């Protein structure tokens, strides 16, 4: 059972365009939603994260939008650059567990064309 569902599986965007990746979760106890970025041959690295008490968080060109009632959250990459080409994972975890265990989505491979 996939507790966090991510789409699309792959995405091609032109340089300067907006990349949008969506995630949906099932467990209403989740209360921490990070996005990780992974380049080939490397481990994932935290990109940006949000808690459900806010509907949006922005860091530079990266924005998370969060819809608690719909149990959905999304990553928006504005002015996408070729250097943003990577695999992106959404994830979720529960505060009550206090273990830092992450449930990941399936991943989205983003290609930004020059």
């Amino acid at each position, binding site marked *: 059972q996939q507790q966090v569902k991510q789409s699309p599986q792959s995405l091609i965007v032109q340089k300067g365009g907006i990349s949008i990746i969506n995630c949906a979760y099932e467990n209403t106890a989740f209360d921490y939603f990070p996005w990780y970025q992974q380049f080939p*041959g490397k*481990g*994932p690295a935290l990109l940006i994260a949000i808690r459900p008490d806010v509907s949006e968080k922005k860091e530079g060109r990266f924005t998370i939008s969060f819809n608690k009632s719909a149990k959905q959250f999304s990553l928006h990459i504005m002015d996408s650059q070729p250097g943003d080409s990577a695999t992106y994972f959404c994830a979720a975890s529960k505060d009550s567990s206090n273990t830092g265990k992450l*449930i*990941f*989505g*399936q*991943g989205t491979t983003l290609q930004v064309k020059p």
Partner: protein
Amino acid sequence: DAGITQSPRHKVTETGTPVTLRCHQTENHRYMYWYRQDPGHGLRLIHYSYGVKDTDKGEVSDGYSVSRSKTEDFLLTLESATSSQTSVYFCAISELGGPNTEAFFGQGTRLTVV
């Protein structure tokens, strides 16, 4: 980069043989995790540790065991390797293990079981 070293980085082994992967950290973080990454599944938690000799199962723990005899080392053992365990394995660390705590990932170990 967080001080995480995984070894070996690549390994090919035969079905039925035991295999041990090592994760070594220099950050003195309390929590350590083993994830496996497979296409279409994202990353899935195998086992995690919340202190020396304190470990617990993740969502895909069957066929795996772990040990943590020192803060800095977390070992993952495949008791009898099977082809379904061919994967890329990532070690991660975090300080508090609670929400909003960044998990730092190693570079990964690519394991092939033939």
